[in-house]
């Protein structure tokens, strides 16, 4: 233990020196070969394939040791030396459970999903965008991250969700989306106005038992898994595994899902958008006829 603690301290103190001095001299080593700074991954090697780029775990290992170890830890379990000050906690790669996926709940994400996560970072967390690393380096990191769980060697990634073309943004679409928001009880956590103050909001915990807040639509924060309408569609259809956010893929039809997307945009009052403009002019004329969202409307908005 003391040795490991020392090792971690050493890693952060001298990461820059190390990487400058020994950039590629050990690049040929096996990913499982003893490393004073890293624990032993659970599988010997992995590759990744992102848009024709093949990532190699052996290369990713060096990048991980330099850039990721501080939070995600020498054993890949999210318990790096910075972890105690970080909320939400860094991802535990040994569980192979990931929030931002294009694949169904309970399945492994694709290499692209992990690559996009590294590239994008997570805006509402301590995870920055790693765009400064070149695509090959990010692909190498994806390959190395996969060595922390034996699942990657045994299971295939899930089949990515098929997202049909977006339907037109109309007031009918927004109104139907609003009905779904009521009927599917999104407001129980996210709150009637998207303020993250629903009746269940205060009790939520992630799968490790740590308190977690629902997304607050009204603050101007972007979504952690991407900020386009397609990303929003994907987020609620696949769910965010490891968090309380479930998958709705089995209960929402594709066109209905676009309606929900259009309504959710109207909750983002701090981010000017097309849906919000349309909605605000509609509300100015018809606001008093709308049934409020929440328990009082007895399950039937509109």
């Amino acid at each position, binding site marked *: 233990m003391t040795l490991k603690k020392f090792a971690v301290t050493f890693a952060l103190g001298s990461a820059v020196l190390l990487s400058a001095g020994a950039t590629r001299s050990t690049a040929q080593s096996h990913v499982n070969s003893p490393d004073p700074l890293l624990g032993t991954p659970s599988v010997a090697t992995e590759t990744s394939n992102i848009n024709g780029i093949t990532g190699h775990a052996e290369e990713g290992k060096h990048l991980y040791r330099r850039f990721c170890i501080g939070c995600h830890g020498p054993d890949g379990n999210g318990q790096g030396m910075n972890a105690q000050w970080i909320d939400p906690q860094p991802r535990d790669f040994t*569980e192979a459970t990931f929030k931002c996926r294009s694949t*169904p*709940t309970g399945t492994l994400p694709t290499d692209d999903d992990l690559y996009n996560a590294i590239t994008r970072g997570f805006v509402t967390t301590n995870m920055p965008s790693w765009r400064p690393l070149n695509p090959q380096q990010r692909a190498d990191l994806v390959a190395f991250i996969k060595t922390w769980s034996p699942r990657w060697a045994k299971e295939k990634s899930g089949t990515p969700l098929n997202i049909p073309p977006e339907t037109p943004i109309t007031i009918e679409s927004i109104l139907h989306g609003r009905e779904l928001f009521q009927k599917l009880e999104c407001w129980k956590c996210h709150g009637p106005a998207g303020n993250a103050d629903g009746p269940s909001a205060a009790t*939520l915990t992630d*799968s490790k038992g740590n308190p977690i807040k629902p997304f607050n639509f009204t603050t101007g924060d972007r979504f952690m898994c991407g900020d386009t309408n397609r990303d929003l569609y994907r987020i609620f259809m696949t*769910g965010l*595994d490891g968090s309380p956010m*479930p998958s709705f893929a089995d209960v929402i039809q594709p066109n209905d899902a676009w309606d929900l997307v259009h309504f959710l945009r109207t909750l983002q009052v701090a981010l000017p958008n097309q849906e919000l403009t349309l909605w605000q002019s509609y509300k100015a004329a018809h606001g008093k006829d709308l049934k409020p969202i929440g328990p009082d409307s007895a399950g039937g908005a509109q």
Partner: protein
Amino acid sequence: MRMKFLAALGLTVAMGSALMVFATPPAGSGSITGKVTYTGTPMKMKPIDMSKEPSCAKQHSTPITTENVTTGPGNTLKWVVVYISAGDEGNTTPSQGVRYDQKGCEYLPHILPMEVGQQLQIFNDDQTSHNIHPLAKVNQEWNKSQPPGSPPIDTKWDKPEFISVKCNIHPWMHGYFVVLKTSHYAVTGDDGAFDIKGLPPGKYTVTAWQEQYGTKTQEVTVGAGAATANFVFTATPY
């Protein structure tokens, strides 16, 4: 195996019963019976406040309580799964599935044992949405929304595990999927008693699992009749 299967298919009239034969564990006249009790002071179960979900609250005339340590007269423990943990290899997956209900914002049954690969159907009988969130660690965790009137979720588990199940919308809802490698298991009832039937004579390792207190194991030799095995857990008040 293959020949038997083809033969069963051929007998179209008797097909239903033929499949039942496949599902039946190897015949055995032996059984293990016993009681599960505790010493010490168990934690008190708390009444559940469902006022935030009126459609569920009105289904319970008196508030239900948490169930993680459910005791009965004579220091007995309910909801303990007793199963053969060794000596019972070579079971086939049963063709009959198991059913899990969300009713009155409660999981029925609180503890649901099943076999690896066995079909599991999850129903929402309530007028409110539930999200069913098995916090699997050995198997892969998933989390699905199930609004009122949705079809049942049809699933199975690939590896043995005690899987904690929760609903994030109704945080008091809590239960377990107990995924086992054996078809020989029983869950203790209100009187803490269990009866594992249909065991061929032999030596078995028997394990009792209680969600709060973990596992207890003992060796049991089964002859033609009923063998006895009692389990005692040490209860703690917190």
